[in-house]
């Protein structure tokens, strides 16, 4: 099966730390619009703010112990899904609007993060992630999820 024949429905992964800074970004789709690295940094922080705003609008009591912010954004061209861990790290993916399998993939990526990043003795928490072992593992999971997702969609 030629990997270039079916376009990649998962576009990009962003990981934002507790303070709202981008610590990881990866583009999976060659055909999607290129976003400059500066723009990525900025957008990650904007999302962090949006996440908190959405959370405060939902909580009338004003109790901000565990913010419950944006988990999904649907637009005409893409969808975004976000996982916030209990420690405040946010993982979010942009993908095709029909990609309804992202929640499981986000959880898998979180596990890969704990195994390959957090358990790395040289990694300092909250810092940018530059580990090829992590990147390769994420890549294989993303490819697998997109292939399985595409097959399921075709069978509908």
């Amino acid at each position, binding site marked *: 099966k030629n990997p270039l024949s079916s376009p990649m429905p998962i*576009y*990009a992964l962003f990981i934002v730390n507790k303070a709202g800074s981008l610590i990881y970004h990866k583009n999976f*789709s060659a*055909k*999607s*619009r290129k*976003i400059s690295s500066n*723009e990525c940094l*900025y*957008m990650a922080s*904007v*999302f962090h*703010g*949006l996440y908190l*705003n*959405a*959370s*405060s*609008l*939902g*909580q*009338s009591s004003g109790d901000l112990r565990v913010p*419950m*912010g*944006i*988990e*999904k*954004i*649907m*637009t*005409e*061209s*893409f969808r*975004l899904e976000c996982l916030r861990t209990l420690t405040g790290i946010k993982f979010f993916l*942009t993908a095709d609007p029909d990609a309804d399998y992202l929640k499981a993939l986000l959880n898998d990526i979180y596990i890969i993060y704990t195994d390959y990043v957090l358990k790395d003795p040289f990694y300092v928490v909250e810092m940018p992630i530059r580990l090829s072992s992590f990147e390769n593992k994420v890549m294989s999971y993303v490819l697998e999820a997109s292939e399985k997702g595409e097959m399921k969609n075709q069978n509908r």
Partner: protein
Amino acid sequence: RRFDMAPRKVDTLYIFARDGSCLYLRKFAGEMKQDAKEVEIEKKNMFGLLFTLKTFVNSITPRNLDEQEKEPIRYFQTAQYQLHYMETASGLRFAASTPPNTRNMQVALGRIYRLYVDYVLRNPSYRVGTVINLAGFNQRVDAYVREIAG
């Protein structure tokens, strides 16, 4: 376009003008009593969120947009609510909050926009861009919200 009969419980309906002023804020959920200051804060926060969300979405979209083209937002969702969004060509913004995992409300928002055109815009006593305080519009919106609540 087929509009399925899945229940859609609207908790709050907002209508914003392009300049950010809130023309209409209507709560259907009922219980929460808010004082005037809280309501004003909610209006500003909601518009601010929608405005920033638009900017964010336009920057992160994988689609190559033309000069003036914007990426239309359908909705966003948190664990506590879902916010459906529709913007008209004139810059009027309709937003409706519902419980999470509610089906698409683009058609419903379009119907509410029609109600706005028929009962607000075409009302000779209404001045465009001002706060909407019309019994006829309120009644129609109430009826429609009840109808789609299932």
